[in-house]
């Protein structure tokens, strides 16, 4: 009591964040038990009947399951594989620019798309890739007829991933650029004297410097593999690209908030979160093994 009287101020400072977290983060975790119930909004969370794993079985045995699950995995897996190296390459290239002013300006341009909203990015995609848009004007010269990029399922993943790289790669390179700036120039000079060429110096000096950061960025990205953005995929969906663009988050939104099937939707969402946590732990464990004990935890 004496202690609390003396330090109540610290707890007072902590309380807004604590209360908001308990309500808006832990509240929904409690609410997620409707996934195990036949939820009726009238009877409430506690009053509804338990149905065990019924909603999960319903999802796993539904004909949609395999398609949606694989769409989610493929979109994020290919996204991770394709976008992970780009910021690293950009940083290594930027690091070779000797004049600070030039480097700053290049960075200014490369970071800019990060500040464009997802609505505008997708809006630009629709405009640029429309049958009469600028990209198709180029294509028409070559192939003679426009390509229906946004409505064809086979292009969805490419458009999604490449536009993600366009938006985020420059920004994602910041962290590597900063790490590379800490490399002692003497190391490069010495290696140069010993006859190491540029590529060898990058391989033996620059890359080892950023390896720990690469590991952390990779773990975080891989851990988020199932939680890829609802926001962009939903905006990019058209009636005809659904065979590849329907992913778990958009499905959860549609069945939950649009069709009102709350319990089933909550179960699908929970399934997604659990896979995500498992992935995060697995990747962290694996990278830790490979990376001499350097993991996230």
């Amino acid at each position, binding site marked *: 009591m004496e202690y609390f009287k003396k330090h109540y101020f610290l707890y007072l400072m*902590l309380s807004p964040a604590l209360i908001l977290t308990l309500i*808006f983060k832990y509240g929904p975790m409690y609410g997620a038990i409707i996934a195990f119930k036949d939820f009726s909004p009238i009877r409430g969370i506690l009053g509804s009947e338990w149905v065990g794993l019924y909603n999960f079985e319903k999802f796993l045995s539904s004909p949609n399951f395999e398609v949606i699950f694989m769409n989610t995995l493929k979109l994020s897996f290919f996204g991770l594989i394709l976008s992970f190296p780009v910021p690293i390459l950009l940083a290594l290239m930027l690091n070779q620019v000797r004049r600070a002013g030039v480097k700053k300006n290049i*960075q200014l*341009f*490369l970071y800019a798309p990060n500040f464009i909203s997802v609505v505008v990015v997708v*809006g630009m995609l629709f405009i640029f890739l429309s049958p009469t848009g600028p990209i198709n004007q180029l294509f028409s010269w070559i192939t003679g007829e426009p390509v229906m990029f946004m409505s064809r399922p086979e292009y969805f993943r490419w458009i999604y991933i490449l536009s993600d790289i366009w938006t985020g790669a420059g920004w994602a390179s910041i962290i590597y650029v900063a790490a590379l700036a800490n490399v002692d120039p003497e190391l490069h000079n010495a290696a140069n004297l010993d006859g190491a060429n*540029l590529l060898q110096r990058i391989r033996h000096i620059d890359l080892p410097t950023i390896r720990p950061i690469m590991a952390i960025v990779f773990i975080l990205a891989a851990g988020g593999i199932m939680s890829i953005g609802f926001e962009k995929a939903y905006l990019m969906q058209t009636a005809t690209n659904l065979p590849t663009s329907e992913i778990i988050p958009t499905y959860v939104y549609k069945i939950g908030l649009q069709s009102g099937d709350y319990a089933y939707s909550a179960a699908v969402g929970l399934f997604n*979160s659990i896979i995500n946590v498992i992935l995060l732990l697995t990747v962290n464990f694996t990278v830790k093994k490979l990376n001499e004990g350097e993991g996230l935890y």
Partner: protein
Amino acid sequence: MFVKHSRLDRFMLALNAAFLTLAVLIVILPLIYVVIASFMDPSVLLSQGISFRISDWSTEGYKMILTNPAMLRGFANAVFYASAFAVLTVMVSVCAGYALSDDRLKGKGFFMTLFLFTMFFGGGLVPTYLLVKNLGLLDTVWAVIIPGAVNVWNIILSRTFFKGVPNELKEASNVDGASEMRIFFSIVLPLSKPIIFVLALYAFVGQWNSYFDAMIYLDNPNLHPLQLVLRSILIQNQVDPGMISDQLAAAEMKRLSEIIKYAAIVVSSLPLIIMYPFFQKYFEKGVMVGSIK
């Protein structure tokens, strides 16, 4: 800097410069295209694409956008949401970060775990929606501002910052008889401008660009932020009929809808694009502080 560059090195550096130039072009050409297109005469743009004749230029798209009530209301709403959200987030995270940086706080590990856990696991969309609904926040501005106000990352960021504030400063004032509250408000807070600024900037930009919470929580179009208005113009192709006077034919609507889209993109992105070069170093600082565990 280097003693000498071999021929291979010089070749590699030239290649490097070429690739970087290419990367910059890939990034900015689409943006330049949008800006030029937004100033085109709608009929010329539709029939022949971008042209560089002065007579083909027009500001018709901007007139449409800047006189469109939905767009203006969205703009005003976005300013309000982004500012209010930034203020709330900063207050909550700075206070929590300060408390968690103090070694005298008992149960620190427990509280940190409580916060960190929510970074990796959540209840999901539907339970969150039901909660907001049950709290009576649906269709109120609070639904957009409050649920996202606690951000674990921001708490970590400010905790890291406050750990860097020398303890002696606090102790000295303590000896002088200042209360805890006084120490925070008159000594620590004035030192915290950098972290407050960085967090506010991030929160503002994030909220300005987001549409999802508003989409699920707000039915009333009068409350819609800019991004939702943009979504109906850019993606759902719903150019507000009020935007174009009723007598005009559908063909005119189609003619103008393209140019309206380009102008809408420019107008909505302009505030951030203008402020971004000035604040670039703060944004970078935010990323750097965040990367320190």
